[in-house]
């Protein structure tokens, strides 16, 4: 299972990004190999349709779950029809490492 986390920076101590499609970095986590990949968001400063472009990136990467703090209005329908699960954490202190720890805990 592949998970994408919207992060504000490129380390595990970075916090979750307040806006999913305009985050600084997407963190791709593979729950089988436990590998983390930090991918700079190419659509950070996209004028329009950043949500759509980010969703296409998720689909091309084969992501099964996306984690963020806030998603746009239109993105949920797209993720639902592609059977991608959305997870929202409202806690602004939440770090990428915390999410990864929760995901690893589940495996055990």
């Amino acid at each position, binding site marked *: 299972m592949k998970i994408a986390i919207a992060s504000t920076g490129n380390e595990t101590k970075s916090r979750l990004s*307040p*806006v999913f499609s305009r985050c600084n970095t997407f963190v791709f986590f593979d729950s089988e190999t436990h590998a983390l990949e930090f991918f700079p968001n190419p659509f950070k400063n996209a*004028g329009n349709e950043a*949500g759509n472009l980010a969703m296409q990136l998720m689909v091309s990467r084969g992501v099964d779950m996306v984690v963020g703090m806030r998603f746009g209005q239109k993105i949920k329908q797209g*993720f*639902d029809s592609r059977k991608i699960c959305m997870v929202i954490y409202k806690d602004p202190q939440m770090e990428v490492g915390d999410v990864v720890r929760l995901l690893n805990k589940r495996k055990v």
Partner: protein
Amino acid sequence: MSPRLKIPRKVETLPPVRVFAPAPSLAQTEGVKPVLVFFEELEAFRLCDYDGLTQQQASERMGVSRPTFTRIYSSSLRKIATAIVEGRPFEFMGGSGYFNSDWHHCSECGGFFSFPLKPQEPTACPVCGSVHISRLEDTFNPDEEGDYINSCPYCGCPSGEGKGRKAHSRRKCKNCGRIYITTSD
């Protein structure tokens, strides 16, 4: 004058197969045009005849009026009858439906998650694996709780300068000086 836009119909489940065809030994499928059944027509057929709801209840589930639902439903019956009588395959595609899943809340990790694999129900939180989860109301909107729309995406600073106070306006962050757009994307 262009016609009025259709209200998008809420579709809960995708069809299990893309094409539903007669047995190949009995029918010459080559050159036979399939009947196109839209997702919302299949949904109307499923709600009424498989789940056994009344048209009033089913129209509420799909977010359309009862007369509109009846039109969608009769169109689905006509298409299915055409396919059976003429021995043609069905193909499920298109239409003006949209998919919408329910929100669930995990009380252990505090996360909200959507579960798109309807009609199954989630048994555990997809992140922490806890079984202490609850389904939220249909009216739940995750954007309403907490106000992150007006904060800077780079440093999280809540105050920004710029024209307008609504979404899609340009702001300059007081703290880090970077320009961002308050957006709902």
